[in-house]
């Protein structure tokens, strides 16, 4: 009864406060990062202006105007240019929009120049950064961009037999008697867990294996326990895990706790949840030629190529990289989405960040691939 009265009084007080001190709507932010792009039909009287004009048209999805800024539009078909920039085959790029960019003239010599464009794409799964070095030439009084079209290889017509296993699930119904057997949830096990401090974020990384003989939809939750045994925070792995695990498949996971420090934490309680789901063993995606390198932005990355060995298009692929130290302990997990679709039998490059804190400590790594296909048969 006392609790009920307290709740009523607290609610009334909060309502009064809400009316007395309203929160003003914050202004809508403009460009998240980079410089504002010019409007449609902007000037192209300098190399940088030409690139910015092109990117402005791309942002506005005015393909006709963007195409008119190209210097090599006699060798770059318009449809190919639109596919290259705007995406196709239901790839992540088709769900993205150019949020902003930074441009810098790398060199200029007479009527030719090289301009670097750092583009920031806003996607359904977070920001994606793309860097292009664009050759810009002067034609008449205007500068125009030579678009570096990436030729997409054509997959030769062929029959690709697919006879990988597929699982369907029939569960017990609500009318079934008590005691009627049901199919059990899959058995999964967390095989490793490591807590690392990454700036102001406490990160839990590790691996989980599906020990069962059926596919599992897996999620990992972690609860931080403070020094006084109180629950500090709870988070899940969200998309930093390969959710659908086939039998005996291993996935890394990463759980971020922004604003928390290792020194605050006494213990971490882990919980792996697994659900029985229909699944297919197809497609098989090979990860080829993985190697460390330094990107054009000067960052350490793990890069390689993804090869879709099936006969169907993988619309969106996400790469998860697990980094191990010399003791085989997981020290970091990074992920990145590939914004192009994986065509059958066609290698597609990828690159994921290697944080500075791991440089020099990484002894080995392993890459796994999450995939999304629009049409699952």
């Amino acid at each position: 009864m006392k609790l009920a009265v307290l709740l009523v009084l607290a609610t009334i007080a909060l309502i009064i406060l809400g009316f007395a001190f309203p929160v003003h709507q914050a202004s809508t932010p403009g460009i998240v990062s980079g410089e504002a792009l010019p409007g449609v039909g902007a000037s192209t009287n300098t190399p940088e202006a030409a690139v910015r004009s092109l990117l402005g048209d791309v942002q506005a999805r005015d393909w006709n105007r963007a195409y008119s800024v190209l210097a090599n539009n006699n060798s770059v078909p318009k449809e190919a240019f639109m596919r290259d920039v705007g995406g196709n085959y239901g790839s992540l790029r088709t769900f993205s929009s150019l949020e902003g960019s930074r441009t810098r003239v790398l060199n200029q010599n007479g009527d030719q120049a090289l301009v670097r464009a750092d583009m920031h794409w806003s996607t359904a799964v977070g920001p994606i950064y793309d860097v292009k070095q664009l050759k810009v030439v002067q034609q008449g009084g205007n500068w125009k961009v030579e678009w570096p079209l990436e030729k997409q290889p054509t997959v030769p017509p062929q029959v690709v037999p697919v006879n990988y296993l597929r699982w369907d699930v029939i569960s017990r119904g609500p009318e079934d008697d008590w005691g009627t057997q049901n199919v059990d949830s899959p058995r999964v096990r967390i095989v490793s867990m490591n807590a690392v401090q990454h700036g102001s974020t406490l990160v839990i990384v590790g691996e989980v294996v599906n020990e069962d003989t059926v596919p599992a939809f897996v999620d990992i939750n972690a609860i931080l326990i403070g020094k006084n045994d109180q629950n500090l925070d709870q988070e899940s792995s969200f998309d930093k895990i390969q959710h659908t695990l086939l039998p005996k498949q291993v996935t890394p996971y990463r759980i971020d706790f922004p604003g928390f420090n290792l020194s605050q934490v006494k213990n971490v309680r882990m919980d792996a949840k697994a659900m029985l789901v229909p699944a297919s063993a197809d497609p098989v995606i090979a990860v080829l030629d993985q190697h460390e390198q330094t990107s054009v932005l000067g960052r350490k990355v793990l890069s390689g190529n993804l090869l879709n060995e099936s006969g169907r298009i993988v619309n969106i692929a996400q790469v998860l990289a697990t980094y191990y130290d010399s003791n085989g302990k997981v020290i970091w997990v990074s992920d990145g989405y590939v914004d192009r679709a994986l065509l059958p039998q066609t290698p597609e490059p990828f690159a994921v960040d290697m944080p500075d804190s791991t440089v020099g400590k990484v002894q080995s790594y392993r890459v796994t691939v999450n995939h999304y296909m629009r049409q699952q048969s």
Partner: protein
Amino acid sequence: MRHALVLALLFVFSASCFAADGPRVQFDTSHIGPRQMEEVTGRNIPRDWGRAWQTLAIAFAQNRPDLLGHYFTGFAQQKLTAGIAAQEKSGVRTRYVDHGHKLEAFFYSPDGGALELHDTADLEIQVLDGNNLVHSERVTLRYIGLMTPAADHWEVRVLESVPSF
């Protein structure tokens, strides 16, 4: 402003109704086997047992078998529903005034899917014919209960009064 206040009051009042304490339940797991009781289950069982009894009392007092579905299932729900239907047909109601329970868990299945309990209940039972009190007694009754887990709580699947444990 007025509407907001009224809505807030309604919400808090209904929330406090649901949050109201059920009958007092003392829970003993010292003789449990073969499986040991988890800490969370050890808190939930007396809570859900108390709520089941609270629901039973209200359902019988108001002839509302629809209330039984949340904390009763299987044979217990079937029998209690039949009991309420028989009450409605005869015009004779049973009212339970619950003075508390001493609950002892004695069988917890190895897979955690079933729990058998001994309940010593302190009850006041009134039998009314229409609005006339026909019988009243305060008794200590013994019950065997069988609970099984549902999505987020435990349900009573069997509830039988017995002369002794």
